[in-house]
């Protein structure tokens, strides 16, 4: 085990800014990217549903 | 012989037409009709091999045109909406250069002769910039006389032409068909052709 205490772990031997800057950016981007991808899919689904409903409405109008 | 079987054209997400089939034999002429946006130009570009059909196949003498590539293009003359003219070149230079680019260089006399035949006598050495729309069209159509191709694909060839020019053009097309050529045309105007071998293709339905 490399670390005596939690604070030692977070201090990273004086390189905290660089190490946590790297790992933090990595974690952040890897959280954001999948969220954006999922959002893109749900956006596409919403538009699809809207379009289908619009088509159904216009069909109902023509048949009635 | 040009054959098309079950062609489908998709533009964006919309299917413009499907199941378009026809055969065109030597000496015959196909008139493609349809409203604006029905896919006439798309069909013509497909027949040239510029666009790929979403479905179906186009064959020339039994071979798919994709396979024939340059061999097919050597039999083909396409005249689209754009005249492929350079404003900075003279009518004569335009005619000669486009023939050379098409792979069939012509002598200056032949080019002058063709331009004269289309009623451009005296304007051969004027830059295309100063020609009227109809005159430019005639320069573009001079390729019909200069490049010896069996299949003509003409998209709205009558645009901007006056009565005399229409008559001349029809004579040229008739002569081509009588000599065993083929033509695929679109036109919003009536084309007073002498030939009886005209087939209609409607794209609307």
């Amino acid at each position, binding site marked *: 085990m*490399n670390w005596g205490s939690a604070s030692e772990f977070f201090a990273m*031997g*004086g390189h905290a800014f660089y190490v946590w800057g790297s790992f933090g950016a990595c974690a952040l981007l890897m959280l954001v990217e999948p969220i954006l991808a999922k959002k893109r899919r749900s956006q596409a689904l919403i538009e699809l*549903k809207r379009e289908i409903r619009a088509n159904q409405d216009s069909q109902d109008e023509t048949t009635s | 012989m040009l054959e098309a079987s079950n062609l489908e054209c998709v533009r964006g997400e919309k299917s413009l037409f499907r199941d378009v089939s026809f055969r065109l034999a030597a000496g015959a002429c196909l008139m493609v009709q349809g409203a604006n946006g029905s896919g006439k130009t798309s069909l013509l570009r497909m027949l040239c091999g510029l666009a790929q059909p979403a479905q179906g196949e186009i064959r020339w003498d039994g071979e798919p045109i994709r396979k024939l590539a340059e061999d097919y293009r050597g039999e083909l003359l396409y005249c689209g909406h754009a005249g492929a003219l350079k404003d900075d070149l003279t009518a004569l230079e335009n005619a000669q250069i486009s023939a050379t680019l098409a792979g069939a260089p012509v002598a200056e006399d032949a080019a002058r002769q063709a331009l004269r035949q289309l009623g451009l006598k005296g304007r051969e050495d004027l830059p295309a910039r100063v020609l009227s729309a109809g005159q430019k069209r005639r320069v573009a159509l001079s390729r019909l006389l200069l490049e010896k191709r069996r299949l003509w694909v003409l998209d709205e060839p009558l645009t901007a032409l006056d009565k005399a020019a229409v008559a001349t053009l029809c004579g040229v097309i008739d002569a081509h068909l009588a000599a065993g050529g083929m033509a695929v045309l679109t036109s919003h105007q009536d084309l007073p052709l002498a030939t009886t071998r005209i087939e209609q293709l409607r794209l609307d339905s």
Partner: protein
Amino acid sequence: MNTRLSTRLSNWFGYASPATFYPLAGKMIPWFWALAAVFGILGLYISFFVAPTDAQQGEGYRIIFIHVPASWMSMFIYLVMAFWAALGLGFNTRLSGMMATSLAPTGALMAFLSLWTGALWGKPMWGTWWVWDARLTSELILFFLYIGFIALQSAIDDPRRADKAGAVLALVGVVNIPIIYFSVKWWNTLHQGASVSLTRSPSMAQTMLLGMLLMALAFWMYAIAVSLTRVRAIILERERHAGWVEELSEVQS
């Protein structure tokens, strides 16, 4: 006969594929997330708790456990992207073009992470944020190539043309990447620039290699999972007029 077979094949590739692939991808995504999490936890454990402190670089060297995998993945994803692009160009398959499109942002992200962590590693090691090291410079150019690919595809409205144009660009890029890398390397040696080199004792090197490998596996699984998620969105966007999309349960509800 032959042509009929080939049209049937291209039909299968061209139309049936997105329809069958969409639900399949949906089922696979959670598994890849789980794998990414497992490899990630193992990798992080090794990089922080197993790998000992470096004698010269102190704790700062631990950045290598994400810097190197990110660099590897950025190059690997470009290759995979070019492979899908070439497949789409050669066989006119629609799904492969979508795969290439969906991989590009993840590849760009990896290239960006590699540059970011490279800069954060460089500062404590060499005292500057940026060195014109051969690898960092090539990574920068690779990042530009990704940006170019994404920009080109988003500038073209017709998705099929976008796929094909992107494919040509990706293939030109793939031919060029090794040339760029060796040019930059040559240029770097001529100018006696700094270079990242790690010489370690064999046992240390092995732990480090294991950690980097595990992290690379985690990044790999992550890239698959996220690009599958994105490709599902792209399929929905592009195939919205296909009948099968309207019959999907998530659309019906």
